Each structure stands twice: as C-alpha cells, then as structure tokens.
C-alpha cells in the first residue's frame, strides 16, 4: 500500500511485558491445553482476579483455574454482575477487568455489562465458553451466536477455532481493551479448543502492530489551542471520563493546567474526580442535573476546552442553543468523537495525558498569562450564578431529605482514615450523589453514565472492594435499582467483603416519577415500587448486616455504625418520597433554561 494507514502514525510504544521462559508456566509443564493457555496468557497480562460463573462450556477453564494459584476467581451470582464487578475492578485500579462466563445463557446475561463497558469506555475482557466447533451452527444445547450478539456491544470480539492462535488472540485482546479509547473485548472459546493441546506464545513475541491508535497530539494544533486559551475572556474547562481513563497522570496535569490558568472547570458525570471538586475553581458537574453555575458558564463562555468528554445529549441539552457564542477546542483519543455532535474549532486527536503535557509546555514556553481583568469579571459573573445556591434543600422535621443523608455520609467519609470508593445505581440517588459527594481524586467514583444501568452499583462495588480490601466502599443505591442485582449479597458474604449499600429509599422509581410529574401530567404509571422487601431482614437472610434510619437522629447513628461493620451492610435510609432532583434541564431545552428547586435563591437575570 502506497499510503500509510493514518492511525499508524506517531505511536507511543507500550512497555514490553516481562519475558517468561517457555516451560516456566503456572502449570509447571511443557505442553498446555487451550484452557491452560487462557490462564497463562492472563497471568502474563498481569491479571490477578477474574469474576465468573461456571457452566458446561467453560468447565475445562474452571478445571485449570482449580489447579493454579496465580489467579483468584470470584464467583458472582449472575453473569451481568461479573461484568459490572470487572468494570468496578478496572475503574478503581486502572487495570483491565476480567470475566469468565459459560456459553448461551451465560453469554447473553453478560450482554448488558458489555454494553455498559462499551458506552463508558471501560477496559474489560470477557471469556465466553462456546459449544464445540463441530456443533456450532446446529442449535446445540446452550448454543448462542455469541460473536454475532456481542459484535455491536464490544470494541472487538473473537471466535477462536485454532488453539495455536489462542495466546496471540488473548494478548491482542488485552492490548485492544486498554489502548486508544478503552472498551470491552469478548473471546468466544469453543469447548474442544479448551481441551486441545497447543503452543503458547508469550506477549513479548506477539505482533500487536495492527492496532496502534494515535496518542501524540499534533503540535501545531496544540499551539493554536493554547493561544486561543490564553486569549480567552470567558473560558471554561469541560472535562470527561477520558481524563480518568488516561490515568492518574492526566488528572494531575489537568489540575496543574487549570490552576495555572485560574480558569473555571466543570466535569461530566464520568469525569468527576479528575479535578478536585472541593477546589473553588471547580463548578461541580454540568448537564441535565448539573449545577446552575456550570451550565450557565458553559452557555455564556467564549472558549470551551473539552478534554475527554463527548458532548453527550445529557450534557448539551438542546443542540442548536448549546454554548452559542464560544469557540470550541475538543481533545479526544477517538477521532470519531470529534465533530460527531458539536463542531470543534480545533479538534485534537490525542491521549489526554499527552495533550495536557504539551499544552502546559507551550503555555510555559510562550510565557502566556491569562487576561486578568477579563477573568476577574468572568469570575464575578460565575459568583452571581453560584449565589443562586442551586443545590439548596430544606432539612426540617423528622423526615430525612436524601441530600441531607448524602451530606452526612460525606461527613463520615471525611472523618474516616480509609481510602473511599463510591459507586451508584441509576436514578435520582445517582444524580444527588454526583451533586453532594465530593471527589478529589480520579478512579474513586464509579457510576453507569452512558448506558444508565440500574443494578450496576452493587457488583461494581464488589469489584472495587476486591481490588482494595482495606478501603471503604459504598454503593449509593435506590430501592428499585438495588433489587436488580441483589443476589450479589451472597458473593459479598462469601468473600467477606464489607461493602456498604446506602439505599436512599423513597419507595418510588424516583427518577421515573420525577419525569412523570414534570413531563407527563403527574400520571404515575407503574413507577411506585410496590411490595418492597424489608431490606434489614433481607440483609440478615443473606448473612449480612441490615440497619434502618427513619429520622435524622437515627441516620447519624446508623452511619456511625455502618462505618464500623466488617460484613456487607445494607443501610435502609427512609427518605422524603416527594423530593425531586434539581436543578434540571428538561430534555430538549438549553442550558440557560434550567428549572430550579423552590429552595434555591431567586435568580435575577438582570443582575448579570
């Protein structure tokens, strides 16, 4: 080919994995079976934990797992949970998460978790068992067209028919899952291939050149971007999950650059924690339930610096009214994200770490300084929006407000010495958690953003707790969502995981109710969570700990107790059933058309 493939240019080489002498594998023998190759390849790719559920088509792999000590297998109670746990593990460690499921129903149960990982760009490898090659296509027992079904919910998938290609495929799978824009990869492995003896190639000898996404930025564009940033009068940083995915270094560089400029910074739901949320330059989350100040600043800014965010519709609101007067810089590792929804004036394809490093270098070299007087009046405007106190709520009387419960939780976390990780389910409680909990570090906040999967939080918390056994891990949950993967109580009990499930129990599918109240004429069609279990007894039935708080006084007591438990604990916090999550941009509305809570200060538009 005369033309070089564009994505081959400017590659950053991954460090070569350690070389392993051929015969020195975890099984201590020369020839390996397909099943043993799977384990060996995983060990060589740094895997120490795998979440899974056995079945006929993966028995050889389970047999191999039984005969080694390098990889710990965590038995979940539903394959969807295996994937979410792998996601929680991945997101809290920055490593690739791994899952193992059987053919047919095992694989189909994994589909939601795979899709979740695809939408949130989480690196996950899922090994699925398959019926023997000679039975594929015959409607054999527990046969499903797994590669067909998962093609559109994976970054890449493989059906392995030749055991001698297995190790190279697994090494490529790890490389693909974590390089570029990360994502889930499925390896479908027929049972006869698991039994077959084959040769093993270590990662160092595997050719990974066919997938080398671009990571280094185009320097001329970086220079143009930094110049635009330096000349801005009303700038804003808008950062997303890409900064988290790029690693802790990216978050450090982002913090450095934002502080250097003195500009305001807002983050998406997936991006929280990349810049310290307790810092005064952070305006909180933006978007549908973002803060008033973040959304108004996005609407009125003159230069928007998007790093690793993708202009999701929950962020932009009405597109033709989205930040109408700004020049936009968009930095993303995925070229197809740039100009997908919003036209970028400067689009830069790069890894966030590399782009930020380059921008800081240019800023320093050219000795740029921000326009002090413009910045001062910009901050004055922002302070005006802040003074609305959009997150105000009134805690009075004996009914616990959900926001109050979260503030109490945050206070307890602040006092605790342990490292803390928060996951959530999906609904109002998720949005309140994003508004009221404060993350100052990346990788400590895990939520299902893109797919919005109810049932994500608890298994993700299990994955995070497995990776950080001594940390405090809390799943902020709703009464409806928690029931979607409640069976994982058994997993948590089995592995002695002290995960805390903090249910904001409003006895409604609160977010559904809120939309019905605001947009569907208060017709509450099927959104009341009838016949809820007694969560305290439920916890106890599984062998965990259950507690309930019905008043603010009880809340203090149960939170204090919860911080001390050494087993999985459900805290059932009975909260105000009528509370809605504000501010809110109704879908199809612009950023400056937010609805505010009645408890917020009045906002006088003539003041700004």
């Amino acid at each position, binding site marked *: *080919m*005369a*033309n070089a*493939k*564009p*994505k081959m240019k400017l590659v950053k080489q991954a460090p070569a994995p350690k070389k392993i002498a051929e015969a020195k594998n975890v099984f201590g023998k020369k020839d390996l079976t397909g099943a043993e190759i799977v384990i060996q390849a995983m060990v060589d790719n740094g895997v120490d934990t795998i979440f899974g559920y056995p079945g006929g088509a993966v028995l050889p792999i389970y047999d191999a797992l039984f005969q080694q000590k390098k990889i710990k297998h965590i038995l979940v109670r539903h394959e969807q949970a295996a994937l979410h746990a792998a996601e929680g593990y991945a997101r809290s460690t920055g490593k690739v998460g791994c899952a193992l499921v059987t053919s047919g129903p095992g694989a189909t149960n994994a589909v939601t978790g795979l899709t979740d990982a695809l939408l949130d760009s989480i690196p996950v490898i899922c090994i699925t068992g398959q019926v023997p090659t000679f039975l594929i296509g015959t409607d054999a027992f527990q046969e499903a067209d797994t*590669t*067909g079904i998962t*093609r*559109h919910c994976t*970054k*890449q*998938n493989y*059906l392995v028919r030749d055991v001698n290609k297995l190790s190279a495929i697994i090494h490529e799978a790890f490389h*693909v899952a974590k390089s*570029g*824009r990360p994502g889930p990869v499925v390896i479908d492995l027929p049972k006869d291939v698991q039994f077959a003896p084959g040769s093993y190639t270590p990662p160092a000898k595997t050719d990974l050149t*066919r*997938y080398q*996404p671009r990571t280094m930025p185009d320097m001329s564009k970086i220079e143009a971007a930094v110049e635009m940033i330096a000349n801005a009068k009303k700038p804003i940083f808008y950062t997303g999950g890409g900064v988290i995915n790029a690693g802790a270094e990216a978050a450090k560089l982002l913090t450095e650059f934002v502080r250097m400029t003195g500009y305001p910074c807002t983050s998406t739901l997936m991006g929280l924690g990349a810049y310290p949320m307790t810092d005064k330059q952070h305006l909180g989350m933006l978007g549908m339930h973002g803060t008033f100040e973040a959304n108004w600043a996005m609407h009125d800014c003159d230069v928007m610096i998007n790093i690793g965010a993708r202009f999701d519709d929950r962020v932009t609101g*009405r*597109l*033709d009214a989205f930040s109408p007067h700004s020049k936009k810089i968009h930095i993303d590792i*995925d*070229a*197809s994200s*740039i*100009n*997908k929804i919003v036209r970028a004036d400067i689009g830069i394809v790069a890894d966030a770490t590399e782009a930020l490093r380059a921008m800081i270098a240019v800023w320093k070299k050219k000795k740029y300084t921000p326009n002090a007087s413009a910045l001062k009046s910009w901050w004055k405007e922002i302070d005006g929006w802040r003074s609305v106190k959009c997150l105000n709520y009134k805690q009075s009387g004996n009914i616990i407000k959900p926001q109050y419960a979260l503030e109490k939780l945050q206070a307890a976390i602040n006092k605790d010495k342990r490292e803390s990780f928060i996951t959530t389910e999906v609904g109002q409680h998720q949005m309140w958690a994003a508004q009221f909990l404060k993350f100052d570090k990346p990788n400590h906040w895990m939520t299902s953003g893109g797919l919005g999967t109810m049932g994500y939080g608890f298994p993700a918390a299990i994955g995070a707790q497995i990776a950080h056994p001594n940390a405090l891990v809390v799943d902020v949950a709703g009464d409806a969502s928690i029931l979607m993967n409640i069976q994982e109580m058994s997993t948590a009990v089995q592995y002695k995981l002290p995960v805390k499930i903090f249910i904001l129990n409003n006895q409604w599918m609160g977010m559904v109710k809120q939309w019905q*109240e*605001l*947009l*569907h004429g208060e017709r509450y069609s099927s959104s009341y969570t009838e016949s809820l279990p007694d969560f305290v007894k439920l916890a106890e039935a599984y062998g965990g700990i259950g507690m309930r708080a019905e008043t603010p006084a009880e809340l203090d007591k149960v939170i204090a107790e919860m911080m001390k438990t050494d087993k999985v604990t459900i805290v059932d916090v009975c909260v105000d059933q*009528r509370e*809605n999550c*504000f501010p809110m941009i*109704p*879908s*199809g*509305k612009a950023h400056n058309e937010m*609805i505010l*809570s*009645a408890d917020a200060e009045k906002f006088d538009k003539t003041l700004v």
Partner: protein
Amino acid sequence: MVRKSLQDKISVYGAAPVSDPILSHTLAIIVDNEPGVLARVVGLFTGRGYNIESLTVAETDHTKKLSRITILCSGTVHIIEQIHHQLERLVPVHYVSNLTLEGAHIERELALMKVVGQKEKRIEALQIADSFRAKTVDTTLDSFVFELTGSPEKIDAFIDLMRPLGLIEVSRTGIAAMARGKKGI
C-alpha cells in the same frame, strides 16, 4: 417540587434536528480478511437504519490476507463522515477512503443477464448486445446469457433495453471503484 408556572411551560422533549440533503458516497475500505469484519463494517450502516446500495468484497492481497470492501451508500455528509471515522477505529480496518469526496474516480460493475426469446426479438437482442460490447457467454436455441462490464449507468441502460426483449434474470456484482491518477491506496 417545581413551581407551577414553569411546569406549564415545559413541552415534552425537544424536536429532532433538521437534517441535510442525502447524497451517495462510494467508500473503499481495506480490511484484514477475517471472520466478522464484514458484519462489523455493515453494522455501522444497519445500526443506523441505513441501506447499502452496493457492496463488493474480495481478498486483494493474498500474502497479507487483506480484502477490499467497496460500499455505495447514501446519507448526509455529516453522517457519512461519522461512519468513515467509526470505520477507521475498528481493529481489523486498515484504511478507509471516501472516493466520492476525494476527487475523480472510476466505478465499474459486471452483470450477467439472461434473455429468452425467438425470431426478431432474438436478433434484436443480439444486435443491441453487440453495440454495448456485451459478451454472449451462454447460448441455447431460445436463450442467451450476456456478460456486460461497465459503469452502473451503462448496465442500467442495457437492462432497460433488454426488458421488452425477454429479459428474465439479472445478476450484478456491485461496483468496484478506484480513484483516477497515480495516487494509490
């Protein structure tokens, strides 16, 4: 608890954005010849509810096991550009070229057509085939199979002429396309 007056003002959901004109594009895609590639490529169109008008695939480099896919599709410039980028990020895709946007190019297609008839119609069919430089690849006393290579428009024109003369079956390859000039993929 929203203020009542505001509640009245909220319309349910926004309107979809107005879209640009739909145009035809010819894409050339170089991929690893491995299972599932075609499904992934085609999925980017079908997943959006878009139809592919023509699709041609064959291995073009046997040592490197590379295939060339030629797709004729239609969509707004913005959507095709999106699909172009999303094709580029697929692991087994090596190169994507939008021939329609990248300058002049040639499109060729091969068709087999079976024409059944007797007497004058048979003679007329043969004469037209001759003027189109179609090859007669099968003959019986009352039928012909013609082979014709050319631009899709030329083949369309030939088919239209054959229809009243007893055309009963058509098989077309879909287009193969290439940019003009010395630059190669």
